[in-house]
Protein backbone atom coordinates (compact mmCIF):
# COMPACT_ATOMS: atom_id res chain seq x y z
CA UNK A 1 0.00 0.00 0.00
CA UNK A 2 2.82 2.37 0.86
CA UNK A 3 4.44 1.61 -2.46
CA UNK A 4 1.26 2.36 -4.32
CA UNK A 5 1.02 5.70 -2.56
CA UNK A 6 4.59 6.49 -3.55
CA UNK A 7 3.87 5.69 -7.15
CA UNK A 8 0.82 7.90 -7.03
CA UNK A 9 2.94 10.73 -5.67
CA UNK A 10 5.54 10.65 -8.43
CA UNK A 11 3.45 12.22 -11.21
CA UNK A 12 2.11 14.79 -8.77
CA UNK A 13 5.59 15.88 -7.80
CA UNK A 14 6.70 15.92 -11.41
CA UNK A 15 3.78 18.05 -12.47
CA UNK A 16 4.24 20.33 -9.52
CA UNK A 17 7.94 20.67 -10.17
CA UNK A 18 7.35 21.82 -13.72
CA UNK A 19 4.58 24.13 -12.68
CA UNK A 20 6.54 25.82 -9.93
CA UNK A 21 9.79 25.87 -11.86
CA UNK A 22 8.38 28.37 -14.33
CA UNK A 23 7.91 31.06 -11.74
CA UNK A 24 11.56 31.58 -10.90
CA UNK A 25 12.64 33.77 -13.86
CA UNK A 26 13.62 37.41 -13.47
CA UNK A 27 10.39 39.34 -13.81
CA UNK A 28 8.31 42.26 -12.61
CA UNK A 29 4.55 42.51 -12.27
CA UNK A 30 2.78 45.46 -13.83
CA UNK A 31 -0.78 46.18 -12.72
CA UNK A 32 -2.48 47.66 -15.73
CA UNK A 33 -5.75 48.11 -17.53
CA UNK A 34 -7.79 46.03 -19.93
CA UNK A 35 -7.78 48.91 -22.42
CA UNK A 36 -4.02 48.77 -22.93
CA UNK A 37 -4.05 44.97 -23.04
CA UNK A 38 -7.00 44.75 -25.45
CA UNK A 39 -5.31 47.31 -27.71
CA UNK A 40 -2.40 44.93 -28.27
CA UNK A 41 0.20 47.53 -27.23
CA UNK A 42 1.91 45.27 -24.71
CA UNK A 43 2.41 42.41 -27.12
CA UNK A 44 4.24 44.88 -29.35
CA UNK A 45 6.15 46.83 -26.71
CA UNK A 46 7.17 44.37 -23.99
CA UNK A 47 9.25 41.91 -26.05
CA UNK A 48 11.50 44.83 -27.08
CA UNK A 49 12.08 45.80 -23.44
CA UNK A 50 12.58 42.20 -22.30
CA UNK A 51 15.10 41.51 -25.03
CA UNK A 52 17.20 44.51 -24.03
CA UNK A 53 17.12 44.01 -20.28
CA UNK A 54 16.40 40.33 -19.68
CA UNK A 55 13.51 41.38 -17.45
CA UNK A 56 10.21 39.69 -18.17
CA UNK A 57 7.18 41.93 -17.70
CA UNK A 58 4.08 40.18 -16.42
CA UNK A 59 1.02 42.30 -17.03
CA UNK A 60 -2.07 41.74 -14.91
CA UNK A 61 -4.76 43.61 -16.83
CA UNK A 62 -7.87 44.58 -14.89
CA UNK A 63 -9.88 47.78 -14.52
CA UNK A 64 -7.97 50.81 -13.20
CA UNK A 65 -9.84 50.61 -9.87
CA UNK A 66 -8.87 47.00 -9.32
CA UNK A 67 -5.33 47.59 -10.60
CA UNK A 68 -4.83 50.29 -7.97
CA UNK A 69 -6.34 48.00 -5.32
CA UNK A 70 -3.90 45.25 -6.35
CA UNK A 71 -0.98 47.67 -6.13
CA UNK A 72 -2.17 48.86 -2.71
CA UNK A 73 -2.01 45.22 -1.61
CA UNK A 74 1.61 45.25 -2.83
CA UNK A 75 0.75 42.74 -5.56
CA UNK A 76 2.49 44.73 -8.28
CA UNK A 77 5.84 46.43 -8.82
CA UNK A 78 4.62 49.04 -11.28
CA UNK A 79 1.21 50.65 -11.83
CA UNK A 80 0.33 51.60 -15.42
CA UNK A 81 -3.23 52.96 -15.63
CA UNK A 82 -5.35 55.87 -16.84
CA UNK A 83 -7.12 57.87 -14.17
CA UNK A 84 -4.86 60.70 -13.01
CA UNK A 85 -6.81 61.74 -9.87
CA UNK A 86 -6.79 58.14 -8.54
CA UNK A 87 -3.12 57.73 -9.42
CA UNK A 88 -2.23 60.97 -7.64
CA UNK A 89 -4.15 59.82 -4.58
CA UNK A 90 -2.24 56.53 -4.74
CA UNK A 91 1.05 58.47 -4.61
CA UNK A 92 -0.22 60.90 -1.94
CA UNK A 93 -1.20 57.94 0.25
CA UNK A 94 2.40 56.78 0.07
CA UNK A 95 1.86 53.73 -2.12
CA UNK A 96 3.55 55.16 -5.19
CA UNK A 97 7.00 56.75 -5.52
CA UNK A 98 6.18 59.25 -8.29
CA UNK A 99 3.69 59.33 -11.15
CA UNK A 100 4.75 60.18 -14.72
CA UNK A 101 2.65 60.94 -17.80
CA UNK A 102 3.41 58.28 -20.41
CA UNK A 103 1.04 58.62 -23.33
CA UNK A 104 -2.47 59.58 -24.27
CA UNK A 105 -5.18 58.76 -26.70
CA UNK A 106 -8.82 59.70 -26.50
CA UNK A 107 -12.22 58.33 -25.67
CA UNK A 108 -14.91 58.08 -28.29
CA UNK A 109 -18.65 57.65 -28.00
CA UNK A 110 -19.71 54.56 -29.89
CA UNK A 111 -23.22 54.17 -31.19
CA UNK A 112 -25.47 52.13 -33.38
CA UNK A 113 -25.69 53.15 -37.03
CA UNK A 114 -29.33 54.27 -36.93
CA UNK A 115 -28.36 56.69 -34.10
CA UNK A 116 -31.71 57.02 -32.24
CA UNK A 117 -30.49 59.98 -30.16
CA UNK A 118 -29.30 61.82 -33.26
CA UNK A 119 -25.82 62.68 -31.98
CA UNK A 120 -23.68 61.52 -34.88
CA UNK A 121 -21.00 64.05 -35.75
CA UNK A 122 -21.45 66.15 -32.60
CA UNK A 123 -18.26 67.64 -31.19
CA UNK A 124 -19.63 68.36 -27.71
CA UNK A 125 -19.52 65.15 -25.66
CA UNK A 126 -21.68 66.41 -22.78
CA UNK A 127 -24.35 67.79 -25.11
CA UNK A 128 -24.38 64.39 -26.83
CA UNK A 129 -24.86 62.63 -23.49
CA UNK A 130 -27.73 65.00 -22.66
CA UNK A 131 -29.43 64.02 -25.91
CA UNK A 132 -28.94 60.31 -25.15
CA UNK A 133 -30.52 60.81 -21.72
CA UNK A 134 -33.39 62.89 -23.15
CA UNK A 135 -34.12 60.23 -25.77
CA UNK A 136 -33.68 57.50 -23.12
CA UNK A 137 -31.56 55.61 -25.67
CA UNK A 138 -29.81 52.58 -24.22
CA UNK A 139 -26.33 53.38 -22.91
CA UNK A 140 -23.97 50.59 -21.84
CA UNK A 141 -21.77 51.69 -18.94
CA UNK A 142 -18.71 49.78 -17.73
CA UNK A 143 -19.98 50.12 -14.19
CA UNK A 144 -16.76 48.58 -12.86
CA UNK A 145 -14.87 51.50 -11.30
CA UNK A 146 -12.34 51.39 -14.14
CA UNK A 147 -10.60 54.44 -15.59
CA UNK A 148 -13.06 54.52 -18.48
CA UNK A 149 -16.01 54.20 -16.08
CA UNK A 150 -14.70 57.06 -13.93
CA UNK A 151 -14.26 59.18 -17.04
CA UNK A 152 -17.79 58.39 -18.16
CA UNK A 153 -19.21 59.34 -14.76
CA UNK A 154 -17.36 62.64 -14.80
CA UNK A 155 -18.82 63.36 -18.26
CA UNK A 156 -22.34 62.64 -17.01
CA UNK A 157 -21.71 64.98 -14.08
CA UNK A 158 -20.51 67.66 -16.49
CA UNK A 159 -23.66 67.07 -18.54
CA UNK A 160 -25.80 67.51 -15.43
CA UNK A 161 -27.43 64.10 -15.83
CA UNK A 162 -27.72 61.62 -12.97
CA UNK A 163 -27.33 58.61 -15.25
CA UNK A 164 -26.61 55.96 -12.57
CA UNK A 165 -30.04 56.79 -11.12
CA UNK A 166 -31.52 55.40 -14.36
CA UNK A 167 -29.54 52.18 -13.93
CA UNK A 168 -31.60 49.22 -15.08
CA UNK A 169 -33.69 51.28 -17.49
CA UNK A 170 -31.95 52.95 -20.43
CA UNK A 171 -28.65 53.22 -18.49
CA UNK A 172 -27.18 49.71 -18.24
CA UNK A 173 -24.15 48.90 -16.12
CA UNK A 174 -22.39 45.82 -17.47
CA UNK A 175 -19.87 45.59 -14.64
CA UNK A 176 -17.29 44.18 -17.03
CA UNK A 177 -14.30 45.10 -19.17
CA UNK A 178 -14.26 47.38 -22.21
CA UNK A 179 -14.45 44.58 -24.77
CA UNK A 180 -17.29 42.80 -22.98
CA UNK A 181 -19.16 46.11 -22.74
CA UNK A 182 -18.69 46.72 -26.46
CA UNK A 183 -20.08 43.23 -27.12
CA UNK A 184 -23.08 44.11 -24.96
CA UNK A 185 -23.56 47.45 -26.70
CA UNK A 186 -23.42 45.69 -30.04
CA UNK A 187 -26.08 43.21 -28.94
CA UNK A 188 -28.52 45.74 -27.43
CA UNK A 189 -27.99 48.64 -29.85
CA UNK A 190 -26.65 50.80 -27.07
CA UNK A 191 -24.31 53.77 -26.97
CA UNK A 192 -21.13 53.41 -24.94
CA UNK A 193 -17.89 55.18 -24.12
CA UNK A 194 -14.68 53.45 -25.20
CA UNK A 195 -11.02 54.34 -25.41
CA UNK A 196 -9.99 54.59 -29.04
CA UNK A 197 -7.32 51.85 -28.95
CA UNK A 198 -9.68 49.14 -27.69
CA UNK A 199 -12.23 50.25 -30.26
CA UNK A 200 -9.70 50.08 -33.10
CA UNK A 201 -8.60 46.60 -32.11
CA UNK A 202 -12.16 45.35 -31.47
CA UNK A 203 -13.24 42.69 -33.95
CA UNK A 204 -16.98 42.40 -33.26
CA UNK A 205 -17.91 45.92 -34.39
CA UNK A 206 -21.09 44.79 -36.15
CA UNK A 207 -23.26 47.85 -36.76
CA UNK A 208 -21.42 49.98 -34.21
CA UNK A 209 -19.47 53.06 -35.23
CA UNK A 210 -17.86 56.13 -33.69
CA UNK A 211 -20.54 58.82 -33.34
CA UNK A 212 -18.81 61.47 -31.23
CA UNK A 213 -15.11 62.28 -31.09
CA UNK A 214 -12.74 65.20 -30.87
CA UNK A 215 -14.01 66.87 -27.67
CA UNK A 216 -11.08 68.02 -25.50
CA UNK A 217 -12.82 66.49 -22.48
CA UNK A 218 -12.46 63.05 -24.09
CA UNK A 219 -8.69 63.20 -23.54
CA UNK A 220 -7.34 59.96 -22.06
CA UNK A 221 -4.01 60.21 -20.22
CA UNK A 222 -2.01 57.17 -19.11
CA UNK A 223 0.48 57.34 -16.27
CA UNK A 224 3.14 55.09 -14.77
CA UNK A 225 4.11 54.80 -11.11
CA UNK A 226 6.65 52.67 -9.30
CA UNK A 227 5.08 51.08 -6.22
CA UNK A 228 6.70 52.49 -3.09
CA UNK A 229 9.09 50.11 -1.32
CA UNK A 230 8.50 52.07 1.88
CA UNK A 231 4.95 50.64 1.93
CA UNK A 232 5.70 47.41 0.09
CA UNK A 233 9.16 46.09 1.02
CA UNK A 234 8.94 43.26 -1.52
CA UNK A 235 8.71 45.59 -4.52
CA UNK A 236 11.43 44.89 -7.09
CA UNK A 237 12.70 48.45 -7.01
CA UNK A 238 15.67 48.17 -9.39
CA UNK A 239 13.91 46.22 -12.15
CA UNK A 240 10.67 48.14 -11.73
CA UNK A 241 12.53 51.44 -12.01
CA UNK A 242 14.31 50.15 -15.12
CA UNK A 243 10.94 49.54 -16.74
CA UNK A 244 9.62 52.98 -15.75
CA UNK A 245 12.79 54.62 -17.07
CA UNK A 246 12.62 52.68 -20.33
CA UNK A 247 8.96 53.56 -20.95
CA UNK A 248 9.78 57.23 -20.40
CA UNK A 249 13.01 57.12 -22.43
CA UNK A 250 13.13 58.41 -26.04
CA UNK A 251 13.31 54.81 -27.22
CA UNK A 252 10.32 53.62 -25.18
CA UNK A 253 8.33 56.64 -26.29
CA UNK A 254 9.23 55.95 -29.91
CA UNK A 255 8.04 52.36 -29.55
CA UNK A 256 4.68 53.61 -28.23
CA UNK A 257 4.33 56.03 -31.16
CA UNK A 258 5.25 53.28 -33.61
CA UNK A 259 2.43 50.98 -32.49
CA UNK A 260 -0.35 51.04 -35.08
CA UNK A 261 -3.67 49.28 -35.39
CA UNK A 262 -4.81 48.94 -38.98
CA UNK A 263 -2.45 51.76 -39.98
CA UNK A 264 -3.71 54.12 -37.26
CA UNK A 265 -1.50 55.28 -34.40
CA UNK A 266 -3.12 54.02 -31.18
CA UNK A 267 -1.25 55.99 -28.48
CA UNK A 268 0.64 59.27 -28.47
CA UNK A 269 3.71 59.40 -26.24
CA UNK A 270 3.87 62.41 -23.94
CA UNK A 271 6.91 61.88 -21.73
CA UNK A 272 9.46 63.06 -24.28
CA UNK A 273 7.43 66.24 -24.78
CA UNK A 274 7.69 66.84 -21.08
CA UNK A 275 11.46 66.26 -21.17
CA UNK A 276 11.91 68.71 -24.00
CA UNK A 277 10.06 71.47 -22.21
Amino acid at each position, binding site marked *: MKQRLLYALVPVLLLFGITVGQASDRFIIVASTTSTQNSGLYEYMLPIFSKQTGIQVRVVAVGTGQAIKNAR*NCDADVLFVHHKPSEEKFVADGFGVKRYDVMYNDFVIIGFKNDPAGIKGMKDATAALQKIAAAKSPFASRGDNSGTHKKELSLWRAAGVDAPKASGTWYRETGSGM*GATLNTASAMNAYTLSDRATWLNFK*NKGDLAIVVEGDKRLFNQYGITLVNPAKCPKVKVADGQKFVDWVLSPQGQQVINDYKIGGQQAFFATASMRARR
Partner: protein
Amino acid sequence: MHDLSTAFVTAFQLILSLDANLLEIVGLSLRISLTAVLLAALVALPLGAAVALFRFPGRTVLVAVLNSLMGLPPVVVGLLVYLLLSRAGPLGELGLLFTPTAMVIAQTILVAPIIAALTRQTVADLNEEYAEQLGSLNVGPGRAIWTLLWEGRFSLLTAVLAGFGRASAEVGAVIIVGGNINHVTRVMTTTIALETSKGDLALALGLGIILLLLVLGINSTALAVQNTARRLYG
Protein backbone atom coordinates in the same frame (compact mmCIF):
# COMPACT_ATOMS: atom_id res chain seq x y z
CA MET B 1 -24.45 32.72 -37.50
CA HIS B 2 -21.38 33.76 -39.41
CA ASP B 3 -19.22 33.56 -36.26
CA LEU B 4 -20.48 30.04 -35.54
CA SER B 5 -19.29 28.57 -38.82
CA THR B 6 -16.05 30.59 -38.70
CA ALA B 7 -15.43 29.19 -35.23
CA PHE B 8 -15.25 25.62 -36.49
CA VAL B 9 -12.94 26.61 -39.32
CA THR B 10 -10.74 28.56 -36.88
CA ALA B 11 -10.64 25.65 -34.45
CA PHE B 12 -9.46 23.18 -37.06
CA GLN B 13 -6.99 25.61 -38.57
CA LEU B 14 -5.49 26.13 -35.11
CA ILE B 15 -5.29 22.40 -34.47
CA LEU B 16 -3.80 21.61 -37.86
CA SER B 17 -1.21 24.39 -37.69
CA LEU B 18 -0.08 23.22 -34.22
CA ASP B 19 0.23 26.88 -33.30
CA ALA B 20 3.04 27.24 -30.73
CA ASN B 21 1.07 29.67 -28.59
CA LEU B 22 -1.90 27.33 -28.56
CA LEU B 23 0.26 24.36 -27.57
CA GLU B 24 1.75 26.37 -24.71
CA ILE B 25 -1.69 27.37 -23.46
CA VAL B 26 -3.11 23.87 -23.81
CA GLY B 27 -0.06 22.41 -22.04
CA LEU B 28 -0.38 24.81 -19.14
CA SER B 29 -4.13 24.20 -18.84
CA LEU B 30 -3.64 20.45 -18.67
CA ARG B 31 -0.73 20.68 -16.25
CA ILE B 32 -2.62 22.92 -13.87
CA SER B 33 -5.93 21.08 -13.96
CA LEU B 34 -4.42 17.58 -13.81
CA THR B 35 -2.15 18.57 -10.91
CA ALA B 36 -5.09 20.09 -9.08
CA VAL B 37 -7.24 17.01 -9.62
CA LEU B 38 -4.46 14.65 -8.48
CA LEU B 39 -3.83 16.68 -5.33
CA ALA B 40 -7.55 16.98 -4.65
CA ALA B 41 -8.06 13.25 -5.17
CA LEU B 42 -5.24 12.40 -2.75
CA VAL B 43 -7.08 14.27 -0.01
CA ALA B 44 -10.69 13.87 -1.07
CA LEU B 45 -10.84 10.12 -1.75
CA PRO B 46 -9.75 9.05 1.76
CA LEU B 47 -11.72 11.92 3.31
CA GLY B 48 -14.92 11.01 1.48
CA ALA B 49 -14.49 7.35 2.39
CA ALA B 50 -13.81 8.18 6.04
CA VAL B 51 -16.95 10.29 6.26
CA ALA B 52 -18.93 7.43 4.73
CA LEU B 53 -17.55 4.75 7.06
CA PHE B 54 -17.27 6.30 10.48
CA ARG B 55 -19.84 7.71 12.86
CA PHE B 56 -18.78 10.81 14.73
CA PRO B 57 -20.52 13.90 16.14
CA GLY B 58 -21.33 16.47 13.48
CA ARG B 59 -21.14 13.96 10.67
CA THR B 60 -24.48 14.91 9.12
CA VAL B 61 -23.45 18.55 9.17
CA LEU B 62 -20.14 17.67 7.52
CA VAL B 63 -21.95 15.74 4.78
CA ALA B 64 -24.25 18.69 4.15
CA VAL B 65 -21.27 21.04 4.04
CA LEU B 66 -19.38 18.77 1.64
CA ASN B 67 -22.37 18.55 -0.66
CA SER B 68 -22.88 22.30 -0.58
CA LEU B 69 -19.22 22.99 -1.30
CA MET B 70 -19.68 21.22 -4.64
CA GLY B 71 -21.39 24.44 -5.65
CA LEU B 72 -18.58 26.75 -4.56
CA PRO B 73 -18.52 29.70 -6.94
CA PRO B 74 -15.06 29.75 -8.58
CA VAL B 75 -14.86 33.52 -8.30
CA VAL B 76 -15.27 33.28 -4.52
CA VAL B 77 -12.51 30.68 -4.29
CA GLY B 78 -10.36 32.91 -6.49
CA LEU B 79 -10.94 35.86 -4.21
CA LEU B 80 -10.20 33.82 -1.11
CA VAL B 81 -6.95 32.43 -2.51
CA TYR B 82 -6.04 35.91 -3.78
CA LEU B 83 -6.45 37.38 -0.29
CA LEU B 84 -4.38 34.54 1.21
CA LEU B 85 -1.55 34.78 -1.32
CA SER B 86 -1.49 38.57 -1.74
CA ARG B 87 1.74 40.17 -0.56
CA ALA B 88 -0.49 41.92 1.98
CA GLY B 89 -2.05 38.58 3.00
CA PRO B 90 -0.96 35.90 5.49
CA LEU B 91 0.87 33.78 2.88
CA GLY B 92 2.31 36.70 0.90
CA GLU B 93 5.84 35.70 1.90
CA LEU B 94 5.66 32.72 -0.45
CA GLY B 95 5.38 34.95 -3.53
CA LEU B 96 2.87 32.60 -5.16
CA LEU B 97 0.28 35.08 -6.43
CA PHE B 98 0.03 35.28 -10.23
CA THR B 99 1.87 31.97 -10.68
CA PRO B 100 0.61 28.61 -11.97
CA THR B 101 0.98 27.26 -8.43
CA ALA B 102 -1.65 29.72 -7.21
CA MET B 103 -3.97 28.44 -9.93
CA VAL B 104 -3.35 24.85 -8.83
CA ILE B 105 -4.22 25.79 -5.26
CA ALA B 106 -7.47 27.48 -6.29
CA GLN B 107 -8.56 24.59 -8.50
CA THR B 108 -7.66 22.04 -5.83
CA ILE B 109 -9.97 23.83 -3.40
CA LEU B 110 -12.72 23.88 -6.03
CA VAL B 111 -12.38 20.24 -6.99
CA ALA B 112 -11.73 18.52 -3.65
CA PRO B 113 -15.32 18.90 -2.33
CA ILE B 114 -16.74 17.43 -5.55
CA ILE B 115 -14.53 14.36 -5.37
CA ALA B 116 -15.07 14.01 -1.61
CA ALA B 117 -18.85 14.28 -1.81
CA LEU B 118 -19.16 11.84 -4.71
CA THR B 119 -16.71 9.45 -3.02
CA ARG B 120 -18.72 9.57 0.18
CA GLN B 121 -21.87 8.47 -1.63
CA THR B 122 -20.10 5.72 -3.60
CA VAL B 123 -18.35 4.32 -0.54
CA ALA B 124 -21.49 4.53 1.60
CA ASP B 125 -23.35 2.43 -0.97
CA LEU B 126 -20.52 -0.07 -1.20
CA ASN B 127 -20.28 -0.29 2.57
CA GLU B 128 -23.81 -1.69 2.79
CA GLU B 129 -22.54 -4.66 0.81
CA TYR B 130 -19.20 -5.03 2.57
CA ALA B 131 -19.84 -3.92 6.15
CA GLU B 132 -20.50 -7.41 7.49
CA GLN B 133 -17.52 -8.92 5.74
CA LEU B 134 -15.16 -6.16 6.89
CA GLY B 135 -16.57 -6.44 10.42
CA SER B 136 -16.02 -10.17 10.60
CA LEU B 137 -12.44 -9.81 9.38
CA ASN B 138 -11.96 -7.17 12.07
CA VAL B 139 -9.93 -4.87 9.78
CA GLY B 140 -8.58 -1.53 10.98
CA PRO B 141 -10.05 1.78 9.78
CA GLY B 142 -7.21 2.52 7.34
CA ARG B 143 -7.50 -0.92 5.78
CA ALA B 144 -11.28 -0.58 5.50
CA ILE B 145 -10.99 2.77 3.70
CA TRP B 146 -8.42 1.38 1.32
CA THR B 147 -10.44 -1.77 0.57
CA LEU B 148 -13.62 0.13 -0.22
CA LEU B 149 -11.80 2.73 -2.34
CA TRP B 150 -10.20 -0.12 -4.25
CA GLU B 151 -13.51 -1.96 -4.71
CA GLY B 152 -15.17 1.25 -5.84
CA ARG B 153 -12.34 2.34 -8.14
CA PHE B 154 -14.39 2.22 -11.32
CA SER B 155 -17.18 4.41 -9.98
CA LEU B 156 -14.68 6.67 -8.27
CA LEU B 157 -12.99 7.33 -11.58
CA THR B 158 -16.17 9.12 -12.60
CA ALA B 159 -15.94 11.25 -9.46
CA VAL B 160 -12.38 12.19 -10.35
CA LEU B 161 -13.39 12.97 -13.94
CA ALA B 162 -16.20 15.18 -12.67
CA GLY B 163 -13.55 17.04 -10.71
CA PHE B 164 -11.38 17.36 -13.78
CA GLY B 165 -14.31 18.71 -15.76
CA ARG B 166 -14.86 21.37 -13.17
CA ALA B 167 -11.17 22.29 -13.03
CA SER B 168 -10.63 22.56 -16.76
CA ALA B 169 -13.83 24.51 -17.36
CA GLU B 170 -13.66 27.20 -14.70
CA VAL B 171 -12.36 30.68 -15.40
CA GLY B 172 -13.46 32.74 -12.39
CA ALA B 173 -10.81 31.50 -9.97
CA VAL B 174 -7.79 31.21 -12.24
CA ILE B 175 -8.22 34.64 -13.79
CA ILE B 176 -8.07 36.26 -10.34
CA VAL B 177 -5.18 34.31 -8.83
CA GLY B 178 -3.29 33.78 -12.10
CA GLY B 179 -3.85 37.21 -13.62
CA ASN B 180 -4.07 35.82 -17.18
CA ILE B 181 -0.42 36.77 -17.81
CA ASN B 182 0.72 35.98 -21.34
CA HIS B 183 3.14 33.00 -21.45
CA VAL B 184 2.95 32.57 -17.66
CA THR B 185 -0.58 32.01 -16.39
CA ARG B 186 -2.71 32.17 -19.50
CA VAL B 187 -4.81 29.02 -19.90
CA MET B 188 -7.58 27.95 -22.26
CA THR B 189 -10.48 29.47 -20.34
CA THR B 190 -8.77 32.80 -19.65
CA THR B 191 -7.73 33.03 -23.30
CA ILE B 192 -11.33 32.46 -24.33
CA ALA B 193 -12.42 35.25 -21.96
CA LEU B 194 -9.72 37.54 -23.35
CA GLU B 195 -10.53 36.89 -27.01
CA THR B 196 -14.22 37.43 -26.26
CA SER B 197 -13.37 40.79 -24.77
CA LYS B 198 -11.37 41.64 -27.88
CA GLY B 199 -14.52 40.91 -29.85
CA ASP B 200 -12.88 38.02 -31.70
CA LEU B 201 -15.85 35.74 -31.09
CA ALA B 202 -14.91 33.20 -33.76
CA LEU B 203 -11.44 32.67 -32.28
CA ALA B 204 -12.91 32.50 -28.76
CA LEU B 205 -15.45 29.88 -29.77
CA GLY B 206 -12.80 28.03 -31.78
CA LEU B 207 -10.69 27.77 -28.61
CA GLY B 208 -13.80 26.56 -26.78
CA ILE B 209 -14.21 23.77 -29.31
CA ILE B 210 -10.57 22.75 -28.80
CA LEU B 211 -11.06 22.73 -25.02
CA LEU B 212 -14.09 20.46 -25.41
CA LEU B 213 -12.16 18.11 -27.68
CA LEU B 214 -9.35 17.94 -25.12
CA VAL B 215 -11.69 17.09 -22.27
CA LEU B 216 -13.39 14.54 -24.52
CA GLY B 217 -9.98 13.00 -25.23
CA ILE B 218 -9.12 12.72 -21.56
CA ASN B 219 -12.49 11.24 -20.67
CA SER B 220 -12.24 8.71 -23.49
CA THR B 221 -8.77 7.68 -22.37
CA ALA B 222 -9.99 7.25 -18.82
CA LEU B 223 -12.94 5.16 -19.97
CA ALA B 224 -10.69 3.02 -22.16
CA VAL B 225 -8.33 2.40 -19.24
CA GLN B 226 -11.31 1.59 -17.05
CA ASN B 227 -12.75 -0.90 -19.53
CA THR B 228 -9.42 -2.61 -20.10
CA ALA B 229 -8.78 -2.84 -16.38
CA ARG B 230 -12.29 -4.21 -15.79
CA ARG B 231 -11.72 -6.91 -18.37
CA LEU B 232 -8.35 -7.88 -16.91
CA TYR B 233 -9.07 -7.66 -13.18
CA GLY B 234 -12.81 -7.17 -12.83
